[in-house]
């Protein structure tokens, strides 16, 4: 075959081609650039003049910008099919957290607690076990519901109050669920949320025997933690520090995680909080804002803050965490890691607090101490303020179908997709954000909510935007850090490997 028999590239990349825009959302970033995103979270940052040419269909169809946008499915043209199947597959992959339906099942085994944290509205300082403890009968019905969901893996999480104050019921639930599951064969991940104040060796032995993970709370160094979390047994911080080590030794470091809650007092101490997590050998931190509803106005004034204040605190903290990572620590921030994996990977993640459809009912459900079923942990807290709007039923009176597919759940579902919420539907950050009908109901009296004065929207948009700025300005090192977080790998594991045969 001679050379002249080859066809020239112009025959395949002809400039004469018309193109259409595929569905996308956009937003102007700081400085001179426009962020484009599509339904499954693929993004492209382009210059404003390129954006103008793009939308007016004036792009050079043989140029790099055109090819880039074509390859990321912002454009379709007659040169090639639209690959609907590829797009559908990517959308399905992003939404695969929905597979198997509700996977996180919260069991509020008691409301009794030895702490009196101002940001918690639900715990009771009561010795009356009968009034605030879940009964075994209710617990068994809740386990039955949990084992009814189609998911092959579920999480059974014990909540309180202080769950360990009703350890006999925790024990009973674990044994009952394990026994019932023998013929069902799901994978059950047990997690106990505890303040660790009365952790005994018997508890640890049981946790180890049944692979139960611990989730506890640490708000920072002693002065801050003890202010946020007053305890009737003395310094909560001292108890946490002592028992955290015991738990890490007994169960392994990876099976003990800590949650941090930010109060007004915390805002001034980003470094101190993070240093405390490092000091206690906790491999990561999750900077969590208050769920700012259901409080008395007086409490809110003492511990609350605006979204702007939190975002400012968050950015400062993240800067410091990045600095630590640059110095060689492998220390991720949990919220950033979740958002980054939404932005930078085609995969789905199961973070029930920020997804669409919202986690409430779809991904999580809470069985309260009195047998009432709520769409989320926040929903049952709302119920303690005498608002039962998110009550889906009762474990003793209602069937699986009535609880998960009843009118209540359908009303929640209607407000659960940010694809269809005013203010979200056309937001470029929609694929990385979520809907929160409970939050918006609690703060605005309306599950759909108005984004213009939504603290949820303000906070999440600001943080996601900030992460986009970091991605945009990223150098090789920051990229490695971000991927070490996403991959749950050390900084060292993200460096290109050396060949084994090369010395030094």
């Amino acid at each position, binding site marked *: 075959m001679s050379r002249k028999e080859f066809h020239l*590239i112009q*025959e*395949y990349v002809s400039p004469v081609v018309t193109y259409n825009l595929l569905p996308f959302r956009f937003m102007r970033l700081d400085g001179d650039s426009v962020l484009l995103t599509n339904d499954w979270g693929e993004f492209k940052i382009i210059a404003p003049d390129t954006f103008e040419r793009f939308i007016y269909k004036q792009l050079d169809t043989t140029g790099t910008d055109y*090819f880039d946008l074509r390859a990321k499915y912002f454009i379709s043209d007659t040169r*090639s099919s639209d690959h609907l199947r590829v797009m559908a597959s990517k959308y399905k992959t992003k939404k695969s957290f929905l597979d198997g339906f509700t996977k996180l099942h919260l069991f509020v085994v008691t409301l009794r607690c030895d702490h009196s944290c101002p940001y918690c509205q639900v715990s009771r300082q009561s010795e009356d076990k009968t009034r605030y403890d879940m009964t075994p009968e209710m617990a068994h019905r809740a386990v039955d519901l949990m084992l009814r969901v189609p998911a092959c893996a579920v999480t059974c999480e014990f909540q309180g109050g202080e769950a360990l104050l009703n350890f006999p019921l925790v024990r009973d639930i674990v044994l009952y669920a394990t026994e019932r599951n023998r013929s069902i064969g799901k994978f059950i991940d047990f997690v106990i949320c505890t303040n660790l104040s009365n952790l005994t060796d018997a508890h640890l032995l049981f946790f180890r025997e049944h692979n139960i993970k611990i989730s506890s709370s640490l708000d920072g160094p002693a002065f801050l933690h003890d202010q946020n979390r007053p305890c009737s047994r003395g310094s909560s911080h001292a108890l946490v520090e002592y028992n955290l080590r015991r738990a890490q030794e007994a169960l392994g470091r990876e099976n003990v995680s800590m949650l941090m809650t930010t109060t007004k007092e915390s805002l001034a101490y980003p470094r101190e909080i993070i240093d405390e997590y490092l000091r206690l050998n906790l491999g990561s931190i999750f900077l969590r804002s208050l769920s700012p509803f259901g409080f008395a106005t007086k409490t809110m004034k003492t511990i609350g803050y605006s979204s702007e204040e939190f975002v400012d605190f968050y950015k400062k903290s993240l800067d410091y965490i990045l600095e630590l990572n640059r110095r060689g620590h492998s220390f991720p921030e949990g919220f950033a890691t979740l958002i980054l994996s939404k932005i930078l990977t085609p995969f789905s993640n199961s973070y029930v607090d920020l997804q669409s459809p919202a986690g409430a009912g779809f991904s999580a459900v809470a069985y309260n101490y009195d047998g009432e079923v709520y769409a989320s942990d926040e929903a049952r807290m709302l119920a303690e303020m005498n608002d039962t709007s998110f009550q889906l039923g009762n474990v003793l009176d209602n069937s699986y179908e009535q609880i998960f597919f009843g009118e209540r759940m359908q009303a929640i579902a209607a407000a659960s997709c940010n694809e269809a919420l005013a203010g979200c539907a056309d937001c470029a950050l929609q694929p990385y954000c979520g809907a929160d009908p409970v939050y918006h109901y609690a703060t605005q009296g309306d599950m759909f909510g108005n984004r213009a004065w939504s603290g949820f929207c303000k906070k999440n948009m600001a943080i996601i935007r900030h992460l986009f700025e970091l991605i945009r300005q990223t150098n090789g090192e920051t990229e490695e850090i971000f991927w070490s977080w996403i991959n749950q790998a050390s900084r060292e594991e993200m460096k*290109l490997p050396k060949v084994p045969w090369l010395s030094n």
Partner: protein
Amino acid sequence: MAIKLTTYGNTAGLNHRFTVRLTRDCSAATLNQTDLALVVSPARECDDLTQYENFAVVITDSSVLFDRLVTAGIPAARVQSTEGYREGYIVTIEPGSGFIRTIFRPESPHNTIFTTDRCNSNCIMCSQPPKEVDDSYLVEENIKMLSLIRASPEYLGMTGGEPTLLGPDLIRLLQAAKEKLPDTHLHMLTNGRLYKNLSFVRRIAEVDHPSFISAIPLYADVAGVHDYIVQAHGAFDETVEGLYNAAEAGLAVEIRIVLHKQSIPRLNQLAEFIYWNLPFAVHVAFMGLENMGYVKKNWEDLWIDPVDYMDSLGAAVKYLYLRRMNVSIYNLQLCLLPQSLWSFARKSISDFKNEYLDVCAHCTVREHCSGLFLSQVHRHSEHVHALTVV
């Protein structure tokens, strides 16, 4: 060192092309005589010809023995040297032309089943340009070859041309490979275009070969550029659809990218495309150019010194590595790669066409280096040099 796999000799007493396994043991023909060729070297005057009668053919470098065999009516082939004909090799012999091709060598990790010369694409850098010929007889020859292999090799390639053009015969071939060599990894080079037919892909998957990978090239993230490189309109769409069909049917796929002037400009975007659209690929291989076939014709449109695309290649490798995809670099010499990429470089060049330059003799990492294609010995990067690291 490159190895010569084809020779022309003289034959006598043969009436059709056939495939045989070689032996040097004249008592071996008690089995199935039509499957064994005896290699005799050196020949002795006293040789008793009756012991040769049971073999399909006797291959010798002795013209004296050859003449005696012809006179005795025993099928025979005479070659210049029998050095390249070792115990257990499998060869095809053509009467008339006396053409002998070695198609299997037990000790080599680079054996391949050559399925066909035909192809439905016409890539501008094809190292083995397609021929529009009827070579359907290769199917039976290949099945025969599979039955002649005594011990399952670790690895067996399948190449062409385009193997999927075999259609139902490809299924037969895969079934034969599964039955005869169940412990062998099978690695098929295909452009994946015919995988657009889901029922065909399902039938391949139903063979249920225990270790079968389809290695499919993707040269760009946009249709126009890929279609130009493979010289076929619609090829990109077919291959993408085919990759999805393979994933749906549960077939493992590898993505292969040949690096040249036409594929380099979008290499990084291609890596992004692979991660976002084909994260199910079990392996991504970036491959240096082999100076064979069309490459010689299209040299000006293809050649770019690897040193000049190293930044792009490094970025693409790192992009996929951070995303935990399995990445390799084939056919590029260590002296052209920064040390940071050495762990991705494989000794990928098949032994029979593998060479090193004179300058390589002093290189301290030569044993870890892919070396060059035989075809590159006189035309390669001017930056190839001996390294002195240990």
